C-alpha cells in the first residue's frame, strides 16, 4: 500500500463521510428534542432523487436546495404526525422508508432507464482541485456543521430549550416553551441536513441516482447517533470511521487479485457498526422523553 493509495483512501473516506455526518448531526438535533426519526434512509433517497432533478432543471445550487426542501417537507410531515397527532415514531419512519423505496423506483422508471439515472457532470457541484485530487466543497460543510451544532446545543438558550423539550417536556411546558412547535422545528432542521446529505450524494459525489442509492446510510447515521450519545463531535468521528470502512470496501474491490470476496468487504461497515455500537453503549444516556409524544395532563 503506497502513499498515493493512502491519500486516495482518505479522499474517498472524506467523501463517504459527508452524508453520514450531515444526517447524523441533524438527527442529533431532532433526538435532543425528543423525536427519533428512523425514516432518514427514505429522506436520503428521496432528496437524492429530487436533488438530481433540481440540478438538471436549474444547476447544482438548485439541486442542493431542492434536496434540502424535500428533506424539510418530509420531516415536517413526520414531526406533525408525531407531535400534534400523537403518532408512533417508529411506524411513521418505516412508512417513510417504504414510500421512498417505491417512489424513487417508480420515478426512475418514468425517467427512462429502470433503476438508474445519470446526473450530467455539467450540473454537478464543482470539485476543488487539491493536492489530494478533486475534493467536494461540501466536505467543509460536513466538517464545520458538527462544531456549530455542538456550540448551539451547549451554549445557547435555544439549545437548552431543545434539551428541555426532550428531557422533561412537562417542566419545559410549564416554563412556557411550546413543546410541539420546538420539536417540529428541530425535526425540520434535521430533515434539511439529511436532505443536503442526500442531494450531495447524487449531485456532488456519485453523480447518479439508483433505487438503492442510500444503501443503509440513513441507518448507519442512526448508528452514529447512538455511538455518539448525542454529541455532534463524536458523531463526526463516527461518520469518519464508517466512511473509512465504506471506502475500504470500495478500495478492496478494485484490487487486481481477489484475496477477499467482495461480499465480505461489503459487509464490513455494518459489522463495524454493530461492534462499535455494542461497545459504546452502557455509558450512553438518551433523553428521557425520546420517542414519546407529549400530552398535557
Amino acid at each position, binding site marked *: 500500500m503506497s502513499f498515493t493509495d493512502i491519500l486516495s483512501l482518505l479522499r474517498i473516506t472524506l467523501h463517504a463521510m459527508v452524508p453520514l455526518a450531515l444526517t447524523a448531526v441533524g438527527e442529533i438535533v431532532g433526538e435532543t428534542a425528543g423525536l427519533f426519526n428512523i425514516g432518514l434512509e427514505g429522506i436520503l433517497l428521496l432528496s437524492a432523487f429530487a436533488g438530481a432533478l433540481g440540478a438538471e432543471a436549474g444547476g447544482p445550487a438548485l439541486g442542493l436546495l431542492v434536496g434540502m426542501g424535500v428533506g424539510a417537507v418530509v420531516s415536517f410531515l413526520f414531526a406533525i404526525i408525531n407531535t400534534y397527532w*400523537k403518532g408512533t415514531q417508529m*411506524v411513521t419512519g418505516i*412508512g417513510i422508508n*417504504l*414510500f421512498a423505496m*417505491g417512489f424513487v423506483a417508480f420515478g426512475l422508471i418514468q425517467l427512462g432507464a429502470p433503476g438508474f439515472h445519470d446526473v450530467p457532470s455539467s450540473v454537478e457541484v464543482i470539485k476543488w482541485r487539491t493536492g489530494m485530487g478533486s475534493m467536494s466543497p461540501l466536505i467543509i460543510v460536513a466538517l464545520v456543521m458538527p462544531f456549530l451544532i455542538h456550540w448551539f446545543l451547549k451554549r445557547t438558550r435555544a439549545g437548552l430549550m431543545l434539551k428541555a423539550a426532550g428531557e422533561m417536556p412537562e417542566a419545559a411546558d410549564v416554563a412556557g416553551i411550546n413543546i410541539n412547535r420546538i420539536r417540529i422545528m428541530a425535526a425540520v432542521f434535521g430533515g434539511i441536513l439529511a436532505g443536503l446529505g442526500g442531494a450531495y450524494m447524487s449531485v456532488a459525489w456519485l453523480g447518479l441516482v439508483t433505487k438503492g442509492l442510500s444503501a443503509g446510510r440513513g*441507518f448507519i447515521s442512526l448508528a452514529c447517533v447512538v455511538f455518539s450519545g448525542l454529541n455532534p463531535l463524536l458523531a463526526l468521528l463516527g461518520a469518519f470511521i464508517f466512511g473509512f470502512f465504506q471506502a475500504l470496501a470500495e478500495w478492496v474491490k478494485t484490487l487486481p487479485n481477489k484475496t477477499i470476496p467482495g461480499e465480505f468487504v461489503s*459487509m464490513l461497515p455494518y459489522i463495524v457498526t454493530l461492534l462499535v455500537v455494542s461497545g459504546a453503549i*452502557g455509558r450512553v444516556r438518551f433523553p428521557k422523553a425520546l420517542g414519546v409524544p407529549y400530552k398535557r395532563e
Partner: protein
Amino acid sequence: MSGNELRPSSRLRRGAHRTLTGLHPVFESVIAGTVGLLVGAILMYMYGFDPWRAYFALIKGAFGGSYELSSSLARATPLILTALTFSICLRAGMFNIGAEGQMYMGGIASILIAYFVLPRGLHHIVGLLFAALAGAAWGIVPAILKVTRGVSEVISTIMFNWIARWSALYIAIFLIADPLRPERTLSIPVTARFPILVRGTDLSYSIFVAVAFALVIYFVLWHTAIGYEVRAAGLNPTAARYGGIRNKRTMFLAFILGGMGAGLAGASVTMGQPPTYAIFGGGSLTQLLNLGFDGMAVAMVGRNHPIGILFAALFFGGLNAGGRVMQFYGSNPVPLEMVRVVMGAIVLAMSIPELIRLFPMAKAKGEQFIAALKRSTKRGERGESA
C-alpha cells in the same frame, strides 16, 4: 344519561356502540388503506396515468377469478409469516426490523436439504425445521445484544439485515450454487416441494404452514401463561417486572418465535413457489427481496393481531398480484413500484393513532374558521376596525 335508567332501546344503542368500538381497529385499517390508495391515485394522476383504469386492472388482477385469487394467496403466504415476526416482537414491546435478514437465512437454510435424500413428508418437515432454526438463530443475536449490552434492537436488526444479505449472496453464489446453472442455487428436491393446491397457479400447500403458524402464535399469545407474560411485558415493562415477569425471558421468546416465522417465510418461497424452487443469487435475491419489509406494513394494517394479519396479508398479496397485471395493462401500464408507494402511504396513515378523529377535528376546526370569518366580515360591514 346515567347508567341506572337504561331502557331497552338505549341498551341496544349501547350494545351497538360497543360493537362499533370493537370494530374501531378495522375501521382504522380500512381508512388507512383508502388513504394509501388515494395517495397512489394522486401520484398516478400527476404522472399522466389514469388511476381508475389502473386500480380496475389491479383489483381484477388480484381478486377477479380463481386464478387471480390463488395468485394473491400465494403472494400473501410469506407476508403472513414476516408480518407475524414484526407483530410478536411489537407485542413484546420491541421493534424487530430484522425479518428481512432472518428470512434470507431461512431461505438459504432450506436449500441445504437438497443435500439429503429423505422420504416425502419427512423431507418437508426437515426443511421447515432448518429454516425455522436458521431464522431463530439469526434473530436471537439482536436479543442477546439488547439484554447484555443494551444495544437498541432497531439498530442491530437493521445491521443484521445487511450482513444477512451479503452472507446469503455469498453462500448462494459460492457454496450452494447449482453447478449447471451458477446464477442460482441448487433446487429443492421434488420430495421436499409443497404440492400445488390449485392446478395451473403457483399457490401451494405452503399457505397452510403460514396459516397454521398464525394460529399457533394466536394460541400462544392469548391462551398460555407465557404468552400473557409476553404481552404484559410489552404493555408495561416496569409493571410486568414488579408482577414477577422476567422481561429477558419474554424478550428472547419473542425474538425466537419471530425469527422462526421469518425463517419459515424464506422456506415458503423456496419450497412452495414454482417454477424454480431455488434462489437466484446473481446480484440480488430476487424472489426474497423486500418480503420482510412488506411484512411490516402487513403487520401494521393487521393491527399486530394474527387473525388481522391473515386478512391484511390477503390485501397486500392482492396488491402485489394485481400490480403485476396492472403494469402490463394495455395503454395504461403503471409500474409495479406504485404498489410499494401505496404501501408506504398506508403505513404512514397507520402511524396516526387518531386517524378517525382527525376528520371530526378538521370539521370542527373548519367550522371555527368559518365562524371567525363570518364574525370578521360582519365587523367589517359595521365599519369596525379588526
